[in-house]
């Protein structure tokens, strides 16, 4: 478990990092996935660009109701619900505890998860549910891609190899949004078999807004549009949440079998977890 030989570059600016990517570098931010892959010799980058010295990438900013998370913001930042204003901060704080364990949360980054695109990633599921936008920079310029168009499959994204994922942006959630995040997994630090994040808006007794993100329910993170549609206009109740769970399981999820979680079981878990998450987001 030793990496093959590689060159190591420490760019001091975003421009320098982008130049390195143009030269074929892979990006080292938190390193919690890349280094493991290199040690397992499943990744053999000839050049690694360590962006940890690039100033300005470690900031969280809120401008005009949009949160921007830089490429060096670590998972642990979100452990405090106050790090991000309003219910969005609460939702992130509920989700982050499911990410590995404290040493990994101290190093790994949110945008690193988006770049890596593991189907079980909590952040990726929330990104698609929350209409996040991914900012990509290369020597060719900067572009922005909505999260739902960004994830293409397991470890596959719309990011070109020479593009640096510099930031991800989220619209803040309205103050009266109810949020919840639940995860089903085999041990306290294993990957999610299924994870569900939800944001619900209930006005005058009726659900007016619903966002449901699903992790490890398909080959990529999903937003449960079908389940969300069953909710809009309904009064929050257990039968409504159960029906939404069933819709998510049958019409949104496209589970991939893996040991200890075949398709039937995983669909069942999706139904149960979605209903439970919704109930928590909007107590009946």
């Amino acid at each position, binding site marked *: 478990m030793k990496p093959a030989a590689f060159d190591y570059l420490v760019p001091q600016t975003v421009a320098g990092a982008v130049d390195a990517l143009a030269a074929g570098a892979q990006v080292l931010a938190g390193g919690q996935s890349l280094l493991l892959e290199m040690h397992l010799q499943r990744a053999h980058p000839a050049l690694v660009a360590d962006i940890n010295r690039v100033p300005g990438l470690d900031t969280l900013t809120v401008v005009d109701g949009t949160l921007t998370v830089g490429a060096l913001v670590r998972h642990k930042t979100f452990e405090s619900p106050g790090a991000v204003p309003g219910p969005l901060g609460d939702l992130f704080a509920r989700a982050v505890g499911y990410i590995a364990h404290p040493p990994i949360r101290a190093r790994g980054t949110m945008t690193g998860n988006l770049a890596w695109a593991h189907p079980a990633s909590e952040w990726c599921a929330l990104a698609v549910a929350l209409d996040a936008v991914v900012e990509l920079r290369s020597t060719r310029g900067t572009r922005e891609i909505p999260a739902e168009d960004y994830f293409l499959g397991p470890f596959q994204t719309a990011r070109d190899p020479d593009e640096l994922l510099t930031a991800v942006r989220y619209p803040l959630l309205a103050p009266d949004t109810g949020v919840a995040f639940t995860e089903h997994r085999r*041990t306290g630090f294993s990957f999610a078999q299924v994870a569900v994040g939800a944001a619900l808006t209930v006005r005058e007794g009726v659900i007016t807004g619903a966002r449901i993100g699903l992790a490890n329910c398909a080959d990529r993170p999903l937003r449960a549009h079908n389940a969300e549609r069953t909710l809009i206009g309904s009064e929050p109740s257990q039968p409504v949440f159960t029906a939404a769970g069933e819709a998510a399981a049958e019409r949104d999820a496209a589970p991939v079998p893996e040991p200890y979680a075949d398709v039937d*079981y995983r669909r069942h878990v999706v139904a149960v977890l979605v209903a439970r998450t919704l109930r928590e987001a909007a107590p009946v």
Partner: protein
Amino acid sequence: MDGWLRREDERLLTGAGRFVADLRVPACLDAVFVRSEVAHGVLREADCSAAREVPGVAGAWSAADLPDLPPMPLGEPAREWPALVEDRVRYPGEALAVVLGDDRYHAEDGAARVRTRIDPLPAVVTAQESAADTVRLFDGLSNVALRGEAGSPIDGEVWERAAVVVESDYRQQLLLPSPMECRTILCVPGGDRLTVWSGHQAPHRLRQDLAGLLDRPEESIRVVVPDTGGAFGSKSAVFPEFIVVAWLAVLLGRPVRWVEDRRESLLVATRGRGQDQHVRLAADAEGRLLAYELTVEADVGAYPHLGVAFPMQTAWMATGPYTTPKVHATVRSLLTNTMITYPYRGAGRPEATSPLERTMDVLARRLGLDPAELRRRNLIPPEAFPYRTPTGRTYDSGDHHAALDLALRTLGYDGWRAEQARRRADPDAFPIGIGLSCYVERSGGERGSLHEYVGVEAGDDGTVTARCGAASSGQSHATVFPALVAETLGVEPARVRLVEGDTDELPGGVGSFGSRSAQIDGAGLQHAAGLLIEEARERAARLWDLPVEETSWSDGAVHPVRGSAAMGLSELVKRTGPLRIDERYEADMAFPFGAHAAVVEVDPELGTVRVLQVVAVDDCGRALDPDVVRGQAFGSIVQGLGQALYEGVPFGDDGLPLLDGGLLDYLLPTYAEIPPIELGETHTPTPRTPLGAKGAGETGCIGTPPAIVNAVADALRLAHPERLQMPLTPDVVWRAAA
């Protein structure tokens, strides 16, 4: 000791431990093995030429490049296990070639350049597939490697006349022992000697094996066991990689080291358990057991070896703690395309305990009896010891009723039953279940390994040196044995040091496995210290010109019965010369026992199991160091939880284990999974040694898994919980609950 609980703690907990990988040896080469990515196949090519061109690579060899390389010892000539694959791959990860480099990085770069080609064959990874003999691991030979039985066949009438007969199938899944430090070996040639450093349980056996393999005198080899990060049974043999490393070190005249990494360990370290079982248990209407039959189909891996006979341990222990008059166990050991199964903490006793204890709970349900009461009616009573079982064991001692009663009291059994009833009346509450398990363990070893070298020596500086053939891989010998010798001699423990794990320092040794160190080495050291006292009294008596009967021993000194003169050990050595006892101590095996109980809460919708409480009452006779015994119990219980709930090796259709994610796929229990554990103890000394200590440390692996599984079955009120096969992952529990 300065606040540390154990002598080892300061070194190990401050990072000052020295493991094989920490040893600095000039000009040492690191070995990396090129491993098969198929489970079964014909090797067509293993070309190392490109690897030899890689900078930093000192050499690369396939089997064809090393025609004289000896095969694994202890195999059958017709089913030889070569140290490097010659023409047939029989398990995934089997070594095809070896690359030596200046360091592990260069060696891995070289290994990546070795070109191999294997034509795959169909793979068999279960005992059932193997038994069909449609795919044979050795052409023209059956996959059945061993048949055996314990007890006598049970007459058909017994089953027909019984009020109740329970039949069931169980699977004891393959487990990976997973010590923190994987296997290690460092061979340093020098002059006409070879020094071998290895994290190992049996240094003398390793020396003997290597001497035979390398065809050189045993005295020319020194085996040293430095700090070792766990073993659990997986480090007691010689392995193909060890042969290659030792061979190349001698061939090249250079130090060569192999430090197994986790990815290799997941593929090619020895496995534990691996049995498919069928049981029949008959009882009369009052719940008195009449007969028990256990059929074991054991998956023993790819090559015949020591482990082939280990399923017999399950057969011999099949009787368990009950007075069942008729017990019959049969075993078939079957070859499969996996790395070999071998002892893993518990080694045959968990596989015996689990089917019996699970079936006891089914029987209790069928009879409408409380499972504790059913056990009480059948446990061997204290006055029945020594108790000869129908499967050929003679249990030395026991008080099973006391252990069970203490376990129930410690748990608060009645309180949990009341809580269970309350929850059953509440449709919103998660159900809870209570599971019990009574067990008998065997410690000390089998015939042929029930002896050990022990020695005690007094120095002229007031120190005492204890020596024994045990080899610690984390069992606190450096704390426990000096304290025992000090207590026997009546000296300060700080004056006693322990020497073990170095064949140059010891005239002989067997090693540490089968929970034998406290029982055999401990009793032996006590015995040797006693002989030292006798010798000291005789010498002092001669000096004082007294009959030896007119001397006595106390506080580490000889005293004349009359008068106030006293002679301590150092003075005695100064005046009479070296004082050293070396003994071969032998004692019979013993049978620790106990009762475990677990309470679990099940989320039936998701199938998740939350363990609310584990209680373990273990009886290891005299506990030499209660803290160390409790530490052993705790760790063993956590490994038992691993078998019950988390650990397993899934296989793909191609026979490859689905463990690409390493320990993210093979889930060991971690801190977050450890439930409240309460330990209780009873102490029934073994009459087989004056010391009275039995082995401790394997009991959690034996007693805990069935308690957990029984608790889950109880929570779900399953009448016949065959679908609950370990590990009880959420999908398994959900399906069983449906």
